[in-house]
């Protein structure tokens, strides 16, 4: 059975089609989930895509966390459902307290779109198991509020528990503390990442196809856990 992966569309989500494309290229089936519907349609995993949910006028991800689908998602996350939040999705996850810390205005105050080098720091999470630790990847980054912040204690905890999944290399594009580009929860099922793996899945349109690894990781993990058969 091919795994079914939900992609939530909030009003203002922009990279939902891209996330769906990436899931399909990795061999999954993408299932569209709608913000106003408190129903996950039995999917085996969920991607929260990039964009500007509800315009992000208040604070990125702040309004999305009150949507009906998020209530379901928070419970499912605590129950172990694999969830990947990309960019705005990462912001929604921190706002929903599924991941610690917060994402703040880029330190240089500009939106920035660039091909960003990252180092994978953790391959224990459901979404990074297909990478090597220390592997360098190149994927697009595009955000205005991507500066990862948390208090020192939280940062130390994240480091100590190996929960930083990727770090910026060469350039810290937004002032993130300790060059953090992505983190996971303690259980390894909920991952947030600021750059966009779903934009690096085809040679023609991306700077590399390194982003596919996040989606193949998921599919492999699902198979390994016996959630779906290979």
């Amino acid at each position, binding site marked *: 059975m091919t795994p079914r992966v939900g992609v939530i569309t909030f009003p*203002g989500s922009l*990279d939902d089609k891209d996330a769906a494309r990436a899931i399909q290229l990795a061999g999954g089936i993408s299932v569209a989930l709608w913000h106003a519907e408190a129903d996950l349609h039995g999917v085996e995993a969920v991607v929260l895509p990039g964009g500007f949910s509800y315009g992000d006028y208040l604070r990125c991800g702040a309004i999305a966390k009150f949507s009906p689908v998020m209530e379901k998602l928070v419970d499912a996350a605590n129950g172990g459902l694999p969830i990947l939040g990309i960019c705005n999705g990462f912001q929604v996850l921190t706002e929903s307290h599924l991941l610690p810390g917060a994402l703040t205005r880029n330190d240089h105050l500009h939106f920035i779109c660039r091909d960003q080098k990252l180092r994978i720091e953790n391959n224990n999470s459901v979404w990074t198991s297909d990478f090597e630790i220390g592997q360098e990847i190149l994927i697009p980054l595009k955000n205005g509020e991507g500066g990862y912040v948390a208090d020192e204690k939280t940062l130390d905890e994240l480091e100590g528990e190996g929960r930083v999944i990727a770090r910026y290399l060469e350039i810290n594009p937004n002032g993130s503390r300790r060059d953090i580009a992505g983190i996971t929860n303690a259980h390894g099922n909920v991952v947030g990442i600021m750059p966009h793996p779903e934009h690096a899945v085809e040679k023609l349109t991306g700077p590399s196809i390194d982003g596919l690894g996040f989606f193949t990781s998921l599919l492999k993990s699902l198979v390994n856990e016996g959630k779906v058969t290979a």
Partner: protein
Amino acid sequence: MSIDKVSDAIAAPETSQPYAELGLKKDEYESIREILGRRPTSSELAMYSVMWSEHCSYKSSKVHLRQFGDKVPKNDSMLVGIGENAGVVDIGQGWAVTFKVESHNHPSYVEPYQGAATGIGGIVRDIISMGARPVAVMDPLRFGNPENSDTRRVLTGIVSGIGGYGNCLGLPNIGGEVVFDPSYQGNPLVNALCIGTMKHKDIHLAKATGLGNAVILYGARTGGDGIGGVSVLASETFDADGPAKRPSVQVGDPFMEKLLIECTLEVLHAGLVEGIQDLGGAGISCATSELASNGEGGMHVWLDRVLLRDSTLTPEEILMSESQERMCAVVEPSKINAFMDVCKKWDVEAVVIGEVNNSGRLTVEWHGEQIVDVPPRSVAHDGPVYERPFARPDWMDIRNAAGPENLVRPSSAAEVKQTWLTMTGTPNLASKIWVTSQFDRYVMGNTILAQPEDSGMIRVDEETGLGVAVSTDCNARFVALDPYKGAQLAFAESYRNVAVTGAAPLAITNCLNFGSPEDPAVMWQFERAVTGLADACLEMGTPVTGGNVSFYNQTGDVAIHPTPVVGVLGVIENVERRTPMAWRNNGDLIYLLGTTSDELAGSEWAHAIHAHLGGHPPVLDLAAEKTLAEILVAGSVGNLFSAAHDVSEGGIAQTIAEMSMQSGIGIRLEVPAGLDAFTFLWSESATRAVVVVPQNQNDEFLTLCASKSFPVTKFGEVDLSSKSIELAAVFGDSISLDIAELRTISEETLPRLFG
């Protein structure tokens, strides 16, 4: 507050009206009275004044723009021509593309962020109103002297406005221009281009057909922004404590626009809509009069039903408000509920404001009182038409006589190297990454090429790889030297930029930015530029699908350089064969296609090094330009090129520098025999491109050029072991340029000025 009703206009025919303050001339006001057989009501006056403005009626340009329709052979690919919100061209495989460029110059000077943001918003609505899904935007921009502190205010605001709106809308920004010239100091140009795609069957037109159909206004609420002028009317017509002067600036809401896109495409695809129109300039006045006159000819509007953001708005203000993010749809009564359901799904407010009839009149009522009763065509289409006087100004002789011949040129290898380094860092030639990195080029996942490539390229069909490429260009200095040839050169450059990527040029759009049409010299520039463009289109067989005119771009008496920005659209059957600009393979051969002559008038070198503008622009042979494009496309189809890049501003030196910086790999070059290094490197002769040919394709490439009798010169090869440009035969010597150093120089300039 009393309302000026139609019955009042009949009863009190001599009431004096502030038509002049609204920008209407006395004879225009008289002809409104003639059309109506009475004085207009204040609401009617409001409608006529906005719709008959230069911006909406094209009254000064119409007589010349006709050439675009008259001279161009109807090309099979034109599905919808000039006159609609945007033209539509057939790109094959059942797909159609619509694209258009519009200006938002004046608002962007007053409030750069919002002016530019709403410029993007406006052009995107034009594209959705054709039934297309917007898939990309581009932004040709012009700014004043980069060292002037006001340029910083204007540029940073405009750039973040374009990014702020476009990024939030989820449209990749795939190209544009950033050009500096003191002539734009008090008048920056913000032109915005949008590309949309659709299946043939989804094309929609702006017309109100079907008696009894409902007219639905949906999207943002109507507010008091963007109606600066009409407050005159309110305060003149009504008592002293009428509404205060309203701001003329609008604030954009890209989130609402995103909802509007999704909502509109959903109602269109569900077959719920008979006609559709965006609301831009002149708001409801424009939408209702255009819909009515393009359909059954009549419409009745209940203006008091319009949802307002500000309950104190007068009917005149509501008619003229340019509040953003609104659309108008014509819907059959039986489909209204379904339409409203879609709106609700997307959280978009909608209300029925009118009904289509065959009265031949556009009638508007306000709480039961008739306030407008006009023939809709007279508002929308039969505005005044001016044959403004035009004359070649005497100063053109002086300008053309003062050529660049006597400017001091570099004449040793060391001077050539220094000139090259300097030119790489001039604001016009320097890397634009500081600007473009503020735009999302990845969203939607179909961007094949974006900045700094010659054209933006978008994949239209993921299954077949069908795609389109678009470029916008205009060297306004050439236009200032010769508006006829300059406009053709702009067209040629844009055409070439599309062909260089492997796409076949198919159609053009344009945005004609000029000074005051009341100045005969400006009008002459305009007439010459339009004629040049139309003649070029005729010769090349490329139709004009639409465009936009922006006049009054001047500060006091001084007009901007005439700037007819030309956007060319090309088609590529499979984006996998696109030609990028960076070389990759060791030993690939570097060729120049075309002929280099000593042509430096209007060049970037003359401008940047000598602040000189004079002489005659480069010679242009359109037939050769067409042949060059054929070679570039055939080379892409035949897989003959590993890279290609067009030669324009900054000459071959700049072309080579850009290719190397993008590639990071070195090359060995030699100035071809018969040319001095300076002319070879910095002349801006037209109709040239640099192509990079793998050795095993060399014979086939040369055969192709020979079969077209096109001049071609080999002048170097790629050297994987090197990280520099090695150029021999430079005044008997050779030079070496470190690519990393070039890149540093190139990338430093904009952050230094604006970061």
